[in-house]
């Protein structure tokens, strides 16, 4: 009956994962339909108005390096940016932005609207249509059936979403938005296993009612960083955030609401993230602390609404209001929207392949919170991968796009999800990566842009830019090995930095190795000054990293190569683990479920003991 055409790729959900997936597939040439419950809410920041941070900032740069959009959208809509951890080593440098929530969403929508391969449809998807274990399309609440060769589900917190505030609870995918029903049941009928997770968000308040003079100002960097490797503009003006603290009085008032807390009374069954606890959780678990940090974050350039970071709560709204007014600077605070907790369905990601395609239904992909992750960046990272693979499946089959754990945080993310699964919302940390020093924010373009270009997602101009950067970085390093620095230029600086003075000329390369010295210090010598002219900040900093930390980078590369060997021992995905009589029952069950593709992945499956891995190795070596 349908007057709608068939699509190649349908993306269900227009959040961070969905937008990135739709953009990637469309850019690669697929005909894409993006279905959303509400066209006005594309690319919403459901929680804090910020992008990046430790490990997450690296993911955004990886998405950008591959040719994704999140970095560009963030750069265009930031109100403040910082490079976190500059005092730490290069693996920890992480860009973070405060965003204008409304502009962010608008900018994303414009980007998608500019792509002629993307169609939009506002409706609720209720069914996925499957024939012979292959996806054939979707069905909506209006009864419309859309055909598709690939379908990507990016439903976020909307699947059977349930919002809790104190004793009250109601269906919803986000405050003031309805939940999505039908898909979970449809997938369960197909044999998918689902679970329940929980997350929460703090109240939003009126900046006009706050006394910022009592808080500490948190400005952006004087040299604000960007996320994109393209020529996006750096901010010329920024808005500050503000820091204040809770106190015992705040805690005492919050405690009066504990008997109505959906968390403590057990009304919420879903598991929440340990690293992003609600304020009531923090008070309960860490009762010895008499205060907790509160960051007040503006929601945009032109709005008075602010986000109360650190005060995530699902206590009754009157308790929220009363407690908040005891925070210094919040004495007269007026609330716009209360904090709340939300429960939603997710599908344990061990049901997926590395391409994010489900093992059960060919052509069906999951990305984002539906896989049990949390965070805009984690969602976008999965979105771009699902988008690329959903497209490739149609146009370039048997050519999966997978990133390794030593190639990208995105690779670590997906491998962790599909191999270990997760029973709490999964957030990326740098410590999840074995090769942190290789996965830096300064080299995501070195790692991934050529790959993105070969796929067809990153433009030629991006590739050219990386090549120029790499050439200039190498030039700096080569010249530093040749250039000698005169004591008279450098000794005053060495003295100031309490680094031992030099008696004779010394190679710039050897001086960069000193932990106390920065490459910019060496500009005291006119030869270095000349050498660094016409080089970008990115180039100079990367050259410094490669020289200063060469030993560590080498060590980690060695380790990566060593451990990679175990990944080269392949396992047939149809391998019958029961045929190894000596494997423990638990291992047989876990391995049969995950179906790892190599021994390295098998060793990361939780519940599989090292001795079972040796049994497997013995068997595989033999055959």
């Amino acid at each position, binding site marked *: 009956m349908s007057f709608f055409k068939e699509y190649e790729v349908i993306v269900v959900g227009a959040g961070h994962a969905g937008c990135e997936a739709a953009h990637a597939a469309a850019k690669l040439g697929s005909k894409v339909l993006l279905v959303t419950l509400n066209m006005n809410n594309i690319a919403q920041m459901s929680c804090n108005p910020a992008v990046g*941070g*430790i*490990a997450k900032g690296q993911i955004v740069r990886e998405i950008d390096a591959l040719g994704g959009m999140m970095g560009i959208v963030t750069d265009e809509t930031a109100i403040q940016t910082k490079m*976190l*951890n500059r*005092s*730490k*080593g*290069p*693996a*920890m440098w992480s860009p973070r932005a405060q965003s204008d929530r409304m502009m962010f969403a608008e900018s994303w929508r414009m980007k998608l609207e500019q792509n002629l391969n993307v169609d939009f449809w506002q409706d609720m998807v209720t069914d996925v249509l499957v024939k012979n274990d292959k996806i054939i399309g979707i069905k909506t609440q209006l009864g419309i059936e859309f055909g598709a060769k690939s379908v990507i589900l990016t439903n976020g917190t909307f699947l059977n979403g349930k919002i809790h505030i104190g004793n009250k609870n109601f269906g919803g995918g986000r405050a003031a938005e309805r939940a999505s029903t039908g898909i979970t049941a449809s997938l369960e009928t197909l044999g998918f296993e689902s679970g329940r997770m929980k997350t929460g968000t703090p109240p939003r308040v009126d900046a006009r009612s706050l006394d910022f003079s009592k808080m500490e100002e948190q400005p952006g960097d004087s040299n604000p960083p960007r996320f994109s490797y393209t020529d996006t503009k750096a901010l010329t003006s920024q808005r500050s955030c503000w820091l204040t603290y809770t106190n015992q009085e705040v805690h005492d008032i919050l405690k009066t609401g504990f008997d109505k807390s959906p968390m403590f009374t057990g009304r919420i069954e879903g598991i929440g*993230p*340990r*690293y*992003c*606890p609600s304020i009531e959780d*923090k008070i309960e*678990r*860490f009762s010895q*602390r008499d205060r*907790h*940090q509160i*960051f007040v974050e503006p929601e945009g350039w032109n709005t008075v609404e602010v986000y109360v*970071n*650190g005060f995530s709560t699902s206590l009754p709204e009157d308790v929220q209001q009363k407690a908040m007014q005891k925070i210094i600077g919040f004495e007269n605070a007026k609330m716009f929207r209360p904090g709340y907790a939300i429960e939603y369905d997710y599908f344990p990601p061990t049901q997926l392949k590395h391409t994010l395609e489900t093992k059960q239904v060919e052509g069906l992909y999951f990305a984002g919170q539906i896989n049990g992750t949390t965070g805009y960046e984690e969602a976008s990272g999965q979105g771009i991968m699902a988008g690329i693979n959903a497209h490739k499946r149609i146009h370039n089959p048997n050519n999966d796009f997978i990133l390794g754990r030593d190639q990208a945080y995105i690779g670590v993310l997906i491998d962790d999800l599909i191999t*270990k699964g997760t029973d709490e919302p999964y957030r990326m*940390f*740098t*410590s*999840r*990566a*074995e090769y*942190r*020093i290789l996965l830096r924010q300064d080299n995501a373009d070195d790692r991934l842009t050529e790959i993105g270009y070969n796929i067809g997602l990153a433009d030629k101009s991006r590739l050219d830019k990386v090549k120029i950067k790499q050439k200039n970085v190498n030039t700096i390093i080569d010249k530093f090995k040749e250039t000698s620095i005169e004591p008279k230029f450098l000794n005053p600086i060495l003295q100031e930095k309490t680094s031992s003075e030099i008696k004779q000329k010394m190679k710039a390369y050897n001086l960069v190795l000193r*932990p*106390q010295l920065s490459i910019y210090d060496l500009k005291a010598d006119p030869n270095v000054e000349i050498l660094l002219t016409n080089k970008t900040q990115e180039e100079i900093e990367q050259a410094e990293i490669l020289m200063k*930390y060469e030993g*560590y980078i080498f*060590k*980690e590369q060695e*380790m990566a190569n060593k451990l990679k060997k175990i990944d080269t021992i392949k396992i047939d995905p149809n391998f019958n683990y029961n045929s*190894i*009589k*000596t494997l*423990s029952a638990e291992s047989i069950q876990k391995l049969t479920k995950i179906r790892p593709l190599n021994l390295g992945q098998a*060793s*990361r499956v*939780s519940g599989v*003991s*090292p*001795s*079972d891995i*040796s*049994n497997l190795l*013995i*068997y595989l*070596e*033999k055959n």
Partner: protein
Amino acid sequence: MDLKNLSKNDTIIAPATSPGMGAIAVIRISGPKAISYTKKFFTPYKSGKDLAEVKTHTAHFGEILDQPVNLEIAEDQPKQQPIDEVLINVFHDGKSFTGEETVEISCHGSTYIIQTILQLFVDAGVRAADAGEFTMRAYRNGKFDLSQAEAVADLIHSTSKASSQLALSQLKGGVSSEISKLREQLLNFASLIELELDFSEEDVEFADRSEFIILVGSIQKLVGKLMTSFSLGNAIKNGLPVAIVGEPNVGKSTLLNALLEEDRAIVSSIAGTTRDVIEDELNIEGVKFRFIDTAGIRETNDEIETKGIEKTFQKMDMARVVMQVFDVTKTAQSEIEKVAQALVDKYPEKEILIVLNKVDLFNPARNSEGGATEGNLSQSTEECVGEISAEDEYAAAKRAELNEMLGTQETKLQFNWEFQNQETITYIPISAKSEQGIQKIKNKLSSLVDVGQLNTGDIIISNARHYNSLKDANLSLDSVLHAMESGIPGDLLAIDIRGALHSLGEITGEITTDDLLGNIFGKFCIGK
């Protein structure tokens, strides 16, 4: 072990006791059909007993027959005959050494009986086990971790009391649990560093760097202690190498024979690492010593001899004890002292024994008792003198010469050689021929290995793989300390901490990043 048997799950058989005559021998059968095979040939004295029905860890007395118990035998054919009276121990699946159904047959220790029983079962379809296959199965079935599996191998190959004690303590998991403790400490340290990294934006208090340095220091001390124990452990496990150095006619082989005499029965001669070296082993007080005979050293211009000397040095390098033998009738005290000092200088780590041979030749006073005592080495025997044969003509002449010179300062001094036990150097006057002073050498050697440490409960590392892992861990910790002192940031520190964790993990099991995060979440208030 044959690779194709690695993952087999059939029933296997092998003697569990060493070959050779003994009062009893144990034959082990392991695998899913161990009981049913045994039942076929075993007839219990207590009638009506069914091996398939008995409880695990029970012993059953009876006979092993040469044909199946239930076989119908024609009148004119020989009936079943007992091979031996045996004790059968039954272990159920999951409850045995291998983790499989197991039967142990204790029979009499005759080679004939053992062979007949083995043959009987092999003919019935049980496979003869490869060397190490029982242990392999135990490891495969998760009965041991890697270090314990290695301990079993060590236990089987232990040739001395001390080495079997050591393997036994490792089998009980001693090494694993010590390493696990170390890893736990390191893991806590790593968590603190990771906390600083991933949660630097959170409101968490970070530990003081100086506390870290103390923590790493104390972990390193433990690693160091385990590493040091390797020299003892290795000595106990593989024997203590003793290089016997001396010129060809100073009496080295006589000395070796004298040393080995009473232990002849347990001495074995095995080919050494180089073709021309024969190592002799001697067990003293439960500790094995390996004697390496060498060519001796002296200054020479001869090319061939120079090569020989190089070889001697190589062998001395490998030894823990250098036993330099002198013929005191031919070497002046000053010369001996010079050589002794040179050895101490060259090998400050090694034990230096200066053996002064042929002290008996100085004062051929009649003493039928023989046996030198400390400080009174002039006692010798008539027989001793009389034994000087034609080959020893030179020595006899020398003795005559010495006797003539008796009373001169040089020879008087020679009589002053006494048993001297110094810090790194020990002088032991002996007569290899008359076996004087041999016990002193043995006492000295056995005092070098403090077997007593085995009983203190301290963990001793005896496995080279463990030692190497500890060494790697120690190197990583060195880098950590160095990095902390020079203010290297945490993400780089973490590389070496993870390196150390990885090295220790190689001994027992693997580490995952999940361990780190789990540790962090359990202890700190994270989250804005």
